[in-house]
């Protein structure tokens, strides 16, 4: 039953939503503003807001000092590659759990989730030593695999939730019409689950893009993605807040744009099945 919403209540809701939205966005806005200031303006007290001589100097310096395109390329490969590989594993896994569950399915799902409960640093040394043995340190391939494995539980869980919403009868009907397992997954299930798959893909790209623990620990020069690019502008002795802000803005811009254009898809996917 729908509740009647008074105009006053609506106005309050809108105001609260705006305040929360601005609070969440403020750090990003401040970073972007700071990236156009000089170092002296960046630490000015009281802070300068919008009325200063906007400068592109920081971007020029960052471009000059760092090979941005290489970091960006590494980020794209690692985020894209780990998501693609992960989906390849997660879709069949989620399918089997959703449509042909065994009495252990619940336990397997919980066990997968439990791997996210261990702090990452707990397995840093084993993984580091394995990487040395396999010669995978500072390689995009190694990092792609690790990030894929880290995000896999989330992918399987999300897809499992979406697949559960799809009536099994439709798949049965497809089978009656002679569809094999492959056709059933590819032509019947996947198209119906596209919103869910899309939001899983997007969320995982974002998670992989922002992953900073493994990307900093397992890379040096060759495979370092944008997280390492940002980290390289932090200084123990010296104030480089404006340059750090410019580097941060350059690192988050691609993912921010992707998120902006796909926000409808993201919201639809994340609320998929939320309303019964």
């Amino acid at each position: 039953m729908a509740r009647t919403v008074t105009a006053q209540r609506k106005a309050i809701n809108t105001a609260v939503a705006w305040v929360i939205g601005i609070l969440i966005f403020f750090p990003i806005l401040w970073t972007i503003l700071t990236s156009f200031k000089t170092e002296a303006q960046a630490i000015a007290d009281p802070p300068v807001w919008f009325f200063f001589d906007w400068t592109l100097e920081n971007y020029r310096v960052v471009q000059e000092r760092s090979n941005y395109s290489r970091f960006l390329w590494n980020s794209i490969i690692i985020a894209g590659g780990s998501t693609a590989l992960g989906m390849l594993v997660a879709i069949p896994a989620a399918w089997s759990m959703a449509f042909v569950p065994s009495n252990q399915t619940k336990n397997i799902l919980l066990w997968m989730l439990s791997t996210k409960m261990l702090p990452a640093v707990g397995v840093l040394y084993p993984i580091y030593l394995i990487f040395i043995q396999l010669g995978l340190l500072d390689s995009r391939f190694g990092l792609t695999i690790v990030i894929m494995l880290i995000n896999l539980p989330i992918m399987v869980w999300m897809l499992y939730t979406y697949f559960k919403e799809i009536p099994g009868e439709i798949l049965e009907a497809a089978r009656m019409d002679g569809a094999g397992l492959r056709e059933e997954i590819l032509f019947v299930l996947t198209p119906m689950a596209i919103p869910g798959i899309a939001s899983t893909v997007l969320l995982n790209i974002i998670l992989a893009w922002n992953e900073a623990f493994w990307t900093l620990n397992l890379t040096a020069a060759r495979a370092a993605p944008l997280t390492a690019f940002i980290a390289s502008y932090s200084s123990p002795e010296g104030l480089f807040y404006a340059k750090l802000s410019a580097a941060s803005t350059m690192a988050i811009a691609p993912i921010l744009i992707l998120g902006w254009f796909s926000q409808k898809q993201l919201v639809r996917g994340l609320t998929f099945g939320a309303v019964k």
Partner: protein
Amino acid sequence: MELRKTFASATALALVMASGAHAQSLTIATVNNGDMIRMQGLSGEFTEATGIELEWVILEENVLRQRVTQDIATSGGQFDIMTIGMYEAPIWAERGWLVSLDGLPGEYDIDDILPAMRAGLSFEGSLYAAPFYGESSMVMYRTDLMEAAGLEMPEEPTWDDIAAAAAAMTDRDAGINGICMRGRAGWGENMAFITTVANSFGARWFDENWTAQLDSPEWLEAVTFYNDLIQNYGPSGAANNGFNENLTLFQQGRCGMWLDATVAASFVTNPDDSTVADSVGFALAPNRDGMDKRANWLWAWALAIPAGTQQEAAAMEFINWATSKDYLELVAEREGWANVPPGSRTSLYENPEYAEVPFADMTLRSINAADPNNPTVDPVPYVGIQFVAIPEWSGIGTLAGQEFSDMVAGRQTPEQALARAQALVTDEMEAAGY
């Protein structure tokens, strides 16, 4: 079918791109300090002269320390040259993790390295890390505020002089704090500073039997003095202030004095960034009236070669270039003498052109006043001034640092902080088998 193709091609693409070719080059791990950035900028000259390509891995200080330790302890072989500090150099050299720099050529003139720096970066008489720049700590103060208060800062102040100046310059209504000091927890943050204060009050971390001494009256006196200064004349929120926060405050004109690294002198006198650039004076770190130990530390950012690198000769060649006399001249020629990395070579301080830099003399005197082999009034079993050169120090320093930071935040008294720090340090040292 489309979807399968997409997945297959995405996977293939990821795999192909992940296995790129590896170029022959030196990988150098360093921090984002101004002098290192300058070195990176000038390193094209090195590549041009030698044909050796350089890959730079620039990391945040704590991440660098963790990455480098992890790599060296597991023989990961990720780096050919590492930027390390005076704390790591002797410990790592003892474990055989570093290549001795005895192989540097004669024209490098190893005897030209400032004796204090050379002593701190050597193990059993051999140099294991070449100082890129060195620092001590000193007093930086506002000459205009001192004048307005009718005071004059001696070149060799005592703690009483500092306390009197802090009281006179503090003007909370105008937003001016008499003194800014480190308060943020960390063995390289507040503990570096507090340890030097303790040294100057005659305290020490351990006696000759490695028994923790934080329950001594000297420690109580030192910590109480530090806490009173920072509470009465320090900025609000001082418990969160490290080097960069205090640098910001000083450049904004919010500090009458700032006691910190000598390397800050070039920042606070740079008119592009500092609003007080033309009214900064320098003085030696203070001592206690009648005691000869001053509260100044000694630190160097140094270049070292991890044992097991495949490119030892090339790495040696780079270190020879980056820490040579010629490099100092190259920087002077391109960017002026004030931007030359300080505190590494005697010849730099004998250069009449460098002597004109306003902070050159006080930096050298500060460095020379520091003796890492005799850091305290009473004898101690360790070397290091603002740290104790044992592997356990980073742990105990950070634990104790938290207690003192809590004290600055007003959550406990100096007595409580010292009692808890003493208990923590004693536990850790017992667990480590001392």
